[in-house]
């Protein structure tokens, strides 16, 4: 039995019922639509006379549509005798609408109530012909939504300053502006029984591996949930190993970074309602790259990347190594430092392990508090916590200064991670390594480190080993891609991604 089945049984979760399609069986009539949207105050329905006397019903969701667009592009032409005069039947009227008699960039002819309802919820208005049992829907979506702004997390000095927003079409527009190539393909899939969220699968034909795109599409289509509202709703279903704390999809809020990854051979996902782009496959090295690297000189960018890699070691191992050295391997420290530590710890009532663990926990608490509070308060709390509480704790001899320094340094090293999911994984593992150090010193750290390394080596993302280019089928080739090689020499795409077009520049 699978773990999920065991959990379902333990928690008495009702059995899964396959999605009913169509959800609203029945012909399209105004009355049926009214029934579907019963008790929805924002559902508007009005009778209109088309041209020479034909009657139809106009439906839309107030708030989702632009009133001006409804009036100007739909109502006005419909009631214009010149355009629709002489229409004797509903079919004729519908055909004229489809042919452009009514203005609308996107016009669809619907015969299923499911499709009409979906259109209405997507910012369309529907002209329903009861006799025809059909409707013609027009896209009149309101343009209200958050304006394109600067990225909050992935700041840039030299690069573009725009970030994704919650509206899918705006995001696809931004991607298209960067990649003006007809080979850039975008397919939408609807995910979520109740949210009907549009998910766009983006790839470059002739570059992205065909197998990757097909697999990505298959995984997205397989998602059967009530609503896709958060990133985890998608990630945990699309990733190969959702139980692993390490991220396996690259997330970005920047269109330029999104396009850069597409050009490297990845396939992407854009989700309506989320200001993020996801890219697959994600490899370990990818989570240490920032777009700014491409803007800087390759040596500077490489050194900064190296610092990020070293920061992983520092944030993961420093507290554990400190505890191991202080408890088991005191001979490793020079005599003067050792004497300084001994002096500092004279009046501290707690053992080193408890000190460090308490400091790490406090660090996490402060960080969490800072994130939950509004911006103005959050900054003040961080300063109060860090300076006053930390300093007071040292002066009251509750903790020793060196423990504070070690934890602070490890925390700061963690902040160099460009990807917050990766940083989160490292924060979690830091505690586990600390426990290993407490119970077995350096041996415990070595075994813990070995298990973490094995776990990373066992991960795959869409068939690509997570530790590419360090390890894997093409392991060792292009090790320099771990850093930022000079662009003139970096002509080939990562072979592990299986791109159809292997070369990226002359």
């Amino acid at each position, binding site marked *: 039995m699978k773990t999920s089945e065991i959990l379902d049984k333990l928690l008495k979760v009702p059995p899964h019922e396959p999605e009913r399609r169509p959800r609203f069986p029945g012909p399209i009539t105004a009355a049926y639509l009214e029934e579907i949207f019963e008790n929805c105050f924002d559902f508007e329905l009005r009778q209109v006379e088309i041209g020479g006397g034909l009657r139809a019903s106009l439906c839309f969701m107030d708030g989702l549509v632009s009133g001006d667009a409804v009036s100007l592009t739909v109502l006005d032409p419909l009631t214009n005798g010149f355009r629709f005069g002489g229409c004797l039947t509903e079919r004729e009227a519908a055909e004229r609408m489809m042919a452009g008699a009514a203005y609308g960039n996107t016009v669809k002819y619907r015969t299923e109530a499911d499709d009409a309802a979906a259109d209405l919820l997507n910012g369309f208005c529907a002209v329903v012909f009861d006799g025809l049992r059909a409707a013609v829907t027009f896209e009149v979506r309101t343009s209200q939504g958050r304006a394109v702004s600067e990225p909050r997390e992935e700041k840039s000095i030299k690069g573009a300053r725009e970030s994704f927003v919650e509206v899918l079409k705006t995001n696809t527009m931004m991607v298209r502006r960067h990649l003006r190539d007809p080979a850039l393909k975008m397919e939408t899939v609807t995910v979520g029984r109740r949210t009907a969220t549009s998910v766009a699968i983006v790839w470059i034909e002739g570059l992205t591996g065909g197998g990757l795109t097909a697999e990505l599409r298959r995984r997205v289509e397989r998602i059967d949930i009530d609503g896709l509202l958060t990133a985890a709703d998608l990630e945990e279903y699309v990733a190969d190993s959702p139980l692993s704390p390490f991220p396996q999809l690259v997330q970005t809020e920047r269109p330029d970074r999104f396009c850069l990854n597409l050009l490297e051979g990845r396939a992407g996902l854009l989700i309506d309602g989320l200001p993020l782009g996801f890219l697959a496959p994600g490899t370990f090295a990818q989570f240490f790259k920032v777009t700014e690297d491409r803007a800087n000189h390759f040596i500077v960018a490489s050194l900064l990347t190296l610092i990020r890699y070293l920061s992983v070691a520092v944030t993961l191992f420093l507290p554990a190594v400190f505890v191991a050295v202080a408890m088991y391997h005191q001979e490793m420290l020079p005599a003067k430092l*050792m004497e300084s530590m001994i*002096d500092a710890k004279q009046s501290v009532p707690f053992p080193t392990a408890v000190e460090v663990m308490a400091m790490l926990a406090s660090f996490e608490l402060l960080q969490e508090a800072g994130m939950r509070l509004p911006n103005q308060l959050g900054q003040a709390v961080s300063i109060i916590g860090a300076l006053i509480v930390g300093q007071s704790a040292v002066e009251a001899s509750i903790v020793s200064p060196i423990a504070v320094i070690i934890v602070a340094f490890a925390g700061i090293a963690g902040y160099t991670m460009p990807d917050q999911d990766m940083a989160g994984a490292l924060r979690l593992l830091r505690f586990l390594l600390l426990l290993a150090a407490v119970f077995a010193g350096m041996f415990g750290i070595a075994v813990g480190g070995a298990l973490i390394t094995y776990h990373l080596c066992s991960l795959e993302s869409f068939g690509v080993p997570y530790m590419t280019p360090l390890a894997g089928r093409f392991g060792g080739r292009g090790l320099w891609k771990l850093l930022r090689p000079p662009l003139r020499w970096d002509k080939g795409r990562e072979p592990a991604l299986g791109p159809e077009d292997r070369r990226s520049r002359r």
Partner: protein
Amino acid sequence: MRRLLIPVLLALALTGCASDFGVYANVSEVERLRLVRTLGVDADESGVLLSADTGSGGGGRAVIWRIRAGTLAEAARRLEKNAMKYDANISHTEHVILGEAAARAGIGETLDYVARTMQMRLDTCLFVARGSRAEDLVTGARGEDASVSDMLQSLKKDAPVIYGCGVATCLEAAEALASEGCVLLRAIAPEPSPEWSEEGYTAVAPAGGAVISGDRLLGFTPEEESEAVGLLTGSVSSGCRALDYGGVPVTLLLTGADVRLKPVTEGGQPAFAVDARLRYSLQGAAAPLSVGDGAVRAGLAAAAAEEVRGELTAAIRRAQGFGCDYLGIRRALCAASPGRMAPYREAWRSLFPKMAFTVAVSAVILRTYDLGDPIA
């Protein structure tokens, strides 16, 4: 199956806490520790007396322990695990002082202990207390914040520059004993200050070399020979030489030395030749000297060379008198001419005391530090 292993692994790791099963026996709390910087080893009929000094680092006074036990290992164990206020930690021990009596009884136990003990480093310096017990040196330092560890630290740093030859470490001693069967350790002696009325000393002075053969102290070399020993062993990098040149006290600073040894044959018997080329700078002169004059410089250099030649000869003769090649002559000769030395490798210990040798020294004065002829 794999999911079960992780809790089992964690549970097993926790058993490391049990002091008789796992690794937790190795845990010590940092605040209880005091770091031993110097160990003193004395031996008598009742066993070993181990004295330990923590130095005055960390802003506090030095802490001193004395532990008596049957063997060195037992005494060290008692030192670490005692019922006193602090736990002694010997993993930062920098110096080991052997009392003269203990050195005469044998240094093998000490070297064995240092090599065998995980906490000790092989680059721990070895000293022999000349004419005294190690305990006297460890416990007798007087003065504000005085400790033998700080004094030895200073001596160790200055030894090659000021005192003419380096300080041997446990590793070097073990190497030399294994290859040559003998080694020259640094001898030290307390130097009481006339102003200090209390019993004790205020400084530690180098007192020549302690010749260890087999693993026992045979005797001492005079401190005046230290520079010669340093030249022959290659451990000297600088030094001062006071000369009397035509009634004028002159101080020369040794700035460089190339000492080469090569095997030769004399009367069909193996012999060796020492060729030393020294470079000096004029550090000071008590009366006007025409240093600009080449003849004066040549005379000064020749006088220095003659003195050094005598010292080198005396040092080699003393080593031959002890019957021990603690100067590393065999090693130097093998490096210079391995093929020629091959027949004598095994018989070296019996050959060396009787070997003839010649010493040739040449010196040159290179500079006088911004002053040509001194201001009258």
